[in-house]
């Protein structure tokens, strides 16, 4: 049926996607191609330091996240203990919450005036805070803390897929516990681990909230770009953006190659290994304690956020625990319409951008995803363009959008959108495209082409087939993708800080300005709202 839509529609759609996704990047490339800008970039040691910092922070984050996530996955997948199920899904939560929420939660817990620092001060009677949470160490800590989830989830999925008979075969051939682990289990998990490593690397490379809040004088490329742009050195900012983009693409290519084909899928489905209830009481207690401890440690920041949101302004000075708890912050938020505006802004922009990303993803699916029988032209370009925003850090896109849409030149398809409320949701949309696109394209791929043919043979036209067969079958994938996209846009900070205007300032910007005004309770209350709305939307999206 796609055949009658004709190549013209595919070509037009490819052009539209290219304009949205690729064109702004190309404009940044041309603007960066100035000798002076490049010389300025090359001659400043700070630039190279920031670039190097981005790279090593990303790599170290991968190592740290693996150290936390992989053992945790083994613990929760292989050992049976009370509370395993609930805790197991709870500790996956930070992955889907906006990074900024995690960052401020961390600040409230481990920061100079956070709970832990206060407790230590009170315990030892110290004059000043025992530490300053700043610099590379702090950034790494936050990264490891929030990105272990990728390793945790990927490893668990890999372990669940693992055929128990492979492990048993190794044991029957005389391999001991460790030998089985190192020679069978871990090699089979390689694709899962490589997938998680890729995800952590890209996330850490593009991470902005943590370096922005905790970096201090320590700059990584994302914060460097925003600072340079604020200083008005636009050409240098372009060079920086290109440099970051190149690192991202290189990292993407290298890690993608490492992942290789998944040997587990090639072997087909096996029976998952049974969970081993530990028989020895002592060990069992240790495992249970470890599980609960990990979970408590990992969820503590988010609980802290809830607690701080109940602290009225100025009521908490030197005490170890806040003396007064009340709902006054929430009352102020919901009582004063002007204070609530960022919430409204974020909701409408997230809704609009998600709707747009869903429509584009459906169009892409309808144009290239249907018929597995023959290769369509434009399939590669369309799939590539949909995925591209994922391979580039958010800062790169933000700068590209700010550059591309600051000029009025309709013949080159450029209009002034900077300073209008439309630019930020448009950027959200492009950033959401890989999420919704991947969900929809995967959904289309699983769709049996015979179903559409069956509908046609029963007299259903193109639109009726889409409405009555394709859409209902895609709806679970669509709901999951849309809810993830909505939550990502709702809590976005990276793109927003470059592109927001006063009229559409989103929640993340409001949280940062509350922090600057030392209104910790208000910032935390916004954080909690963000968390609750995100969790609700995700729950809704995952519902079957």
């Amino acid at each position: 049926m796609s055949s009658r839509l004709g190549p013209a529609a595919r070509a037009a759609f490819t052009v539209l996607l290219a304009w949205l996704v690729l064109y702004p990047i190309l404009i940044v490339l041309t603007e960066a191609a100035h000798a002076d800008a490049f010389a300025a970039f090359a001659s400043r040691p700070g630039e190279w330091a920031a670039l190097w910092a981005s790279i090593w922070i990303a790599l170290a984050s991968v190592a740290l996240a693996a150290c936390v996530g992989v053992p945790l996955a083994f613990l929760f997948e292989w050992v049976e203990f009370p509370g395993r199920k609930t805790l197991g899904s709870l500790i996956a939560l930070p992955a889907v919450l906006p990074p900024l929420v995690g960052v401020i939660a961390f600040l409230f817990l481990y920061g100079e005036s956070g709970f832990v620092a206060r407790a230590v001060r009170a315990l030892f009677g110290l004059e000043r805070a025992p530490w300053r949470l700043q610099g590379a160490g702090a950034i790494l800590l936050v990264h490891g803390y929030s990105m272990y989830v990728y390793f945790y989830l990927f490893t668990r999925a890999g372990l669940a897929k693992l055929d128990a008979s492979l492990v048993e075969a190794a044991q029957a051939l005389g391999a001991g516990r460790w030998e089985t682990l190192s020679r069978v289990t871990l090699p089979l998990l390689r694709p899962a681990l490589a997938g998680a490593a890729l995800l952590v690397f890209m996330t850490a490379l593009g991470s902005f909230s943590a370096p922005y809040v905790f970096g201090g004088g320590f700059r990584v490329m994302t914060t460097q770009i925003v600072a340079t742009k604020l200083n008005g050195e636009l050409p240098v900012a372009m060079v920086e953006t290109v440099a970051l983009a190149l690192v991202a693409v290189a990292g993407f290519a290298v890690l993608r190659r490492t992942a290789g084909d998944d040997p587990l899928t090639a072997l087909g489905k096996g029976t998952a290994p049974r969970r081993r209830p530990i028989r020895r009481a002592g060990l069992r207690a240790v495992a249970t304690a470890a599980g609960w401890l990990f979970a408590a440690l990992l969820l503590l920041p988010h609980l802290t956020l809830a607690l701080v949101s109940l602290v009225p302004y100025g009521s908490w000075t030197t005490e170890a625990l806040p003396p007064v708890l009340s709902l006054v912050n929430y009352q102020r938020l919901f009582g004063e319409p002007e204070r609530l505006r960022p919430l409204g802004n974020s909701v409408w922009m997230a809704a609009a951008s998600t709707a747009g990303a869903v429509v584009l993803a459906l169009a892409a699916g309808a144009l290239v995803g249907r018929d597995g029988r023959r290769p369509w032209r434009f399939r590669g370009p369309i799939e590539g363009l949909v995925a591209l925003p994922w391979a580039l850090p958010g800062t790169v896109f933000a700068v590209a959008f700010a550059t591309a849409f600051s000029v009025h030149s309709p013949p080159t398809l450029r209009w002034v959108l900077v300073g209008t409320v439309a630019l930020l949701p448009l950027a959200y949309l492009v950033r959401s495209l890989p999420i919704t696109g991947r969900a929809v394209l995967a959904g289309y791929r699983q769709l049996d082409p015979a179903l559409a043919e069956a509908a046609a043979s029963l007299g259903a036209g193109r639109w009726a087939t889409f409405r009555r067969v394709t859409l209902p079958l895609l709806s679970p994938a669509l709901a999951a993708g849309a809810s993830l996209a909505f939550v990502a846009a709702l809590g976005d900070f990276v793109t927003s800080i470059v592109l927001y205007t006063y009229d559409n300032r989103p929640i993340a910007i409001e949280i940062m300005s509350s922090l600057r005004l030392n209104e910790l309770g208000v910032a935390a209350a916004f954080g909690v709202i963000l968390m609750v709305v995100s969790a609700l939307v995700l729950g809704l999206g995952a519902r079957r």
Partner: protein
Amino acid sequence: MTGFVTLAAVRKQWSHTVSIGPIALEIPRGEILALLGPSGSGKTTSLRLIAGFETPDAGRIVIGGEDVTTLPPARRRCGMVFQHYALFPHLDVRENVAFGLGGLDREARDRKVAESLELVDLAGFERRKPHELSGGQQQRVALARALAPEPRVLLLDEPLSNLDPALRERTRRELRALIKRVGITTVFVTHEQEEAFDVGDRVAVLNQGRLEHVGTPDDLYERPATLFVATFVGRANVLRGPTARALIAGGGGGGVGAADGQVLVVRPERLRFAGAGVAGVVKERRYTGAAAFYQVETERGERLEVQAGPDAARVGDRVHLEAARVMTFPEQRE
């Protein structure tokens, strides 16, 4: 013979080497035609051409006097049962069957659904989802769904291939009885000869995109048009050269000369052990109850399969073979 469904010089080219046709086929009203052939012979493509999922590069397709060559599938009024049934997984049985009944009002639609399910003996299954049904039940829902809108032609793509063998044989007979009861013109695709013979009024044998022979099962078996049909339909011994000549000389040829370049085909049941004829040794015996199949190796090393009584010979016996009836074909050059 006037066709209700007519394929006139239909051709479809996939690539330089893969093509179908030209196919000319006339299917009279109410006939069940089986499209038989090995995989890749173009039988499913022929079915999809009739359904409208593929458009021919040349030729015309006519259904009930209407040229449908350029008509999209939705307007051809062909009911189709897919190989894996393609039941809509998000709809229950009732909704699946009602899918093609958009034009009717609610009451008429409900009545039609009930009728169709009654027809395939699935009344009471309205609320089940496809995954809650057995393979045989799914197949019958697919059939009910295809028949409900009262199509002009029923098309079936390997409708029995997903059933287990024990069920298949019974379903074959039920399927034929049901189609005959409805009286609809039917084309169905299969790669199994037995299935084609059991269900079809006539069988069309396809090979490498070409129509080799269209005829009744008897016709196909006794008077195959080509060497391919002779060997694809039923068991056959294929012989060339001196052994072939010797068999014909033994009287089975009825005066047919075996010129060079001729190929001889003999069915196992047309060979018999005799006092004189082609000499050989029994190498294997396979017992099937009423009869046995004997593998006889001739002095030239050819192997012949003979169907005879269970006690006609033993392994190791030296025997002579005679043919009751042979078929000859010109040697085909690929």
